[in-house]
C-alpha cells in the first residue's frame, strides 16, 4: 500500500518536474505550442484510458466529446452570450449528460458491437457539427473568443503551456487516485472478468456507465482547452480519425497505464510535427510506425519498457 502511494507521488512529481523544466530547453514559442498540444491530447487520452484500460470498454467515437467541449466554448460566447469559462462548464455537462443517456443502452453491447455503436455515435456528432453551419461554421470551422478570467485575457503560447500543463497534472492526479478507490477497484474487476465482478457484487452496468461519463468529461475539457488555445476550431476535431488517434495514443502508450497515455499522446502529437520535413511521406511513415510499434510492443510502450527494465534490474 505504502509503495503504491509512493509510486503515485513519484509519477506526479516526475510529471510536474518535466512540465517545469521543459521550457528551459525550448528554443522557440513553437515548442511551447507543440508541448501544449501534447498536454491537451494526453488529458483526453488519460480519460479514455479510464474507460478502455481500467473498465475494459472500447470507444471508437470519443472525439465526439472532444468536439462537444470545443464547440461549446466556440458557440456559447458567439451565439448565446455565455461567458467563455461558463461555456466550458456547459460543454462538460453536455458531454456528461450525452454519455449518460447514450451509455446506458450502448454499454450493454460487447466487443465489436460496442466499437461500432460508439463509432456510430462519433460519426453522428461529427456530421451534425459539420452540417449545421449556421451554428458551427460548417466544414470550415469557426473562431473561438479568447478566454477572459476576471478581466485577464488569456493568450500567448507560453501562458497556455502552463494552463494545459496544470490541467494535465490535475487530470493525472485524479486518474491515479481513482485507481485506488472502490470505484477504481470495481473498474479493474470489470476489466478482468465481468462475471466475477458481478458475483462479488459489483454493479457492472453502473460502473461501466461511470467510466464512460468520466472519460467523456475528460475529453470535453481537453476539447475546450484546445479550442481556447487555438482560437479556432473545425469539425476534424470531432471526426473519426481523431477518435482513432485517441485510441491509438492509449493503446500505443499502454492500456491501463496513466503514464502510458501521456507517452502515447507525446508520440502521436510530436511525430507528425517531426515528419513535416518528409511532408509527402507523412502518412506512410505514421502508418508504418504504428504497425511496427504495435507488433514489437503489443502491450504498449510504457508496460513493455518497464517490464524490460525490471528484468534488467533483477539479472
Amino acid at each position: 500500500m505504502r509503495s503504491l502511494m509512493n509510486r503515485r507521488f513519484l509519477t506526479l512529481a516526475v510529471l510536474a518536474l518535466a512540465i517545469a523544466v521543459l521550457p528551459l530547453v525550448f528554443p522557440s514559442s513553437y515548442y511551447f505550442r507543440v508541448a501544449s498540444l501534447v498536454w491537451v491530447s494526453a488529458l483526453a487520452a488519460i480519460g479514455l484510458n479510464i474507460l478502455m484500460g481500467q473498465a475494459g470498454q472500447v470507444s471508437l467515437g470519443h472525439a465526439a466529446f472532444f468536439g462537444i467541449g470545443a464547440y461549446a466554448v466556440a458557440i456559447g460566447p458567439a451565439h448565446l452570450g455565455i461567458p467563455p469559462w461558463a461555456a466550458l462548464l456547459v460543454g462538460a455537462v453536455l458531454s456528461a449528460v450525452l454519455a449518460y443517456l447514450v451509455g446506458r443502452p450502448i454499454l450493454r453491447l460487447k466487443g465489436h458491437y460496442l466499437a461500432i455503436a460508439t463509432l456510430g455515435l462519433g460519426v453522428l456528432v461529427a456530421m451534425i457539427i459539420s452540417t449545421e453551419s449556421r451554428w458551427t461554421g460548417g466544414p470550415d470551422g469557426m473562431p473561438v473568443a479568447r478566454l477572459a478570467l476576471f478581466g485577464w485575457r488569456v493568450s500567448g503560447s507560453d501562458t497556455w503551456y502552463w494552463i494545459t500543463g496544470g490541467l494535465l497534472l490535475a487530470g493525472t492526479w485524479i486518474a491515479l487516485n481513482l485507481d485506488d478507490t472502490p470505484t477504481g477497484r470495481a473498474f479493474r474487476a470489470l476489466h478482468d472478468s465481468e462475471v466475477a465482478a458481478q458475483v462479488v457484487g459489483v454493479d457492472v452496468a453502473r460502473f461501466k456507465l461511470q467510466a464512460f461519463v468520466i472519460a467523456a468529461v475528460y475529453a470535453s475539457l481537453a476539447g475546450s482547452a484546445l479550442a481556447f488555445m487555438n482560437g479556432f476550431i473545425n469539425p476534424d476535431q470531432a471526426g473519426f480519425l481523431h477518435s482513432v488517434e485517441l485510441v491509438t495514443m492509449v493503446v500505443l502508450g499502454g492500456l491501463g497505464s496513466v503514464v502510458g497515455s501521456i507517452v502515447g499522446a507525446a508520440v502521436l502529437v510530436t511525430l507528425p510535427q517531426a515528419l513535416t520535413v518528409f511532408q509527402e511521406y507523412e502518412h506512410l511513415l505514421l502508418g508504418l510506425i504504428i504497425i511496427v510499434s504495435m507488433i514489437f510492443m503489443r502491450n504498449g510502450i510504457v508496460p513493455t519498457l518497464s517490464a524490460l527494465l525490471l528484468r534488467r534490474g533483477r539479472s
Partner: protein
Amino acid sequence: MAEFLQFLISGLTVGAVYALVALGFTLIYNASGVVNFAQGEFVMLGGMVTVFAAAAGVPLPLAGLVAVCVAVAVGLLLHRLAIEPARGASAVTLIIITIGASILLRGIAQVMFDKQFHKLPAFSGDTPVDVLGAAVQPQSFWVLGGAAVVVLALYVFLEHTVLGKAVLATAANRLAARLVGINTTTIMALAFGGSAAIGAVAGILITPITLTSYDVGTLLALKGFAAAMLGGMGNPLGAVLGGLILGLLEAFGAGYLSSTYKDAFAFLVILVVLFAAPQGLFGRRVVERV
C-alpha cells in the same frame, strides 16, 4: 412509383458495394478473428490501379485484372508482414495494426498516384436505360451483376470445394481445424487474399459511378463494417443483406428525408438496431451462463 424505383435501384447499387466490403470483412474476421480496418483500402486500390493502368494504355479488362492482382498481393503482404507477426495479440491491438495499415496504404497511394479524383468510363456507355419509368445507369447493372457473381462464386467455393470447407472449419474452430490437419496459416493468408480481391472488384465496379481517390477507403470501411455488424458479425449472408439494407436506407433517407444527413441516417439506424438486437439482425444469439 418511378421515383421509388429510382431510389430502390440506386440504393441497391450502393448497397451491393457495401455488401462486398462487408463480405471481405466477414471473410477475414471468420478466418482470423481480426477486424480489418484496411478493407476500404482494397476498394481504393481496385479503383486507383485500374484508372492508372488504363491511363498508361492497358485495355480496361486487363487493367482491372492488374488491379485485382495488386490488391491480392497487398492483402497477402498485410497478412504476412503485419498480422502474422502479431499473432496472439489482443483484439484491440490487432485493430490498431489494421488502422495503421490503412493509414500506410493511403500514404503509399498518395505518393505513388496523386490526390486528385479519378473517373473510369462506364463499361457499357452512359445512355440511361428506362426501367418502368426510372432512368437507370447501365453501370448499375454491372455493379449488381458483378456483386451477385462474386457472392455466388464465394458460396460455391465455401460449400463445394475442399479448400472452402477448410476455411469454414477454421472459422468454426481454429484449434480443431488445426487438429484435423488444416494449415490454418495458409487459410488465413487465403482469406486476406480473397478479401482483397473482393474489395478490388467492388472498387473497379463502382468507380465509373462514384469516382475514386486515394482516401475513399475510410468511409467505405466504416460503412462496410457497419453493414457487417448490422447483419451480425461473422455471418456472410448477413453481411450481404446488411450491405443491401444499408444502401437502401441511405438512398431512401436521402430521397425522402434529407440528403445532407444521408450518411448520418445509416449510423442512426445501426444504433437503433443494436439497441433492439445487440447481436445484429441475423447474428446468433449468444447466451451467457453465469
